[in-house]
């Protein structure tokens, strides 16, 4: 698939797992950008056009929910699907993420099917 994906997670291991699982789900991008927190993600988004964002919530410096607000405030990544991938699976967190612009929500630990079912439809639409 042409285009660019941005994976945001403070765990380098988890970023690798997300990318490997996307590849297994036949979702691959030409360019991969990685960020360890929300501020690094904003730096990438100000300089690059991306086609999919996979984002953790619970991160140091700037978490995923704050990143969603900043993205909206700065008008970055308009129309780009954002999928939250996180251990925080409570209903208020999900609701807040969706209200702030996330299009999908995957709870860790996830399976290949979770990635397929939550990410692929967003890329087809």
């Amino acid at each position, binding site marked *: 698939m042409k285009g660019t994906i941005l994976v945001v997670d403070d765990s380098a*291991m988890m970023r690798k*797992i997300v990318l490997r699982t996307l590849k297994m789900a036949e979702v691959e991008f030409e360019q991969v950008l990685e960020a360890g927190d929300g501020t690094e993600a904003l730096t990438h988004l100000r300089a690059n056009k991306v086609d999919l964002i996979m984002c953790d919530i619970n991160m140091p410096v700037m978490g995923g929910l704050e990143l969603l607000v900043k993205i909206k405030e700065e008008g970055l990544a308009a129309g780009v699907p954002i999928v939250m991938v996180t251990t*925080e699976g409570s209903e208020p967190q999900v609701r807040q993420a969706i209200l702030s612009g996330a299009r999908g929500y995957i709870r860790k630990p996830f399976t290949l099917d979770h990635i397929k079912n939550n990410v692929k439809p967003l890329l087809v639409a």
Partner: protein
Amino acid sequence: MPETMLATRSFLNQEFLSQESVDRADESVFEVFARMLGLPVEVVSPPELTPGVDEERTAIVGYSGAMRGSCEVQMNRGAATAIASAMLGGGPVEDEASLDDAVGEICNMIAGGWKDRVPALSSLCALSPPTVITGRSYKVHMSTPSIKLQRCYRFAGQHLFLTLRREDMGPS
């Protein structure tokens, strides 16, 4: 004290050390191993440890909000290597940063899984990012005495020790 706080406190005091709580811990561990590692895991009695023989790693995730406490996952280097390798699909992983990262993420997912299985905590309790400590000589300090729930698991010939700890709020 508000009624909702009393209800939460009452639940925690009665349930934290219950069999249901233990079952939730086991379910969380089994789920993480099945989904992220593809490794079978079982509950076992803790083996006797030989101090100084093998370096230990401990990951700690803090709970705040409706419950103040921590989830601690402890294992030796062999176990951390097995987990990191499984997380990345079987390739060798030896660098210390990746091993710390893997143990921290396992702890994070177990901590979140247990919390989400407790209805009174799910949306009222937050997790801290994981901290990883190397070595056996450490002590968790809390502002009040704590009570703990401990389990030991075996996978791929290795052991994982889980400790769930919460501040003791006294009798309900």
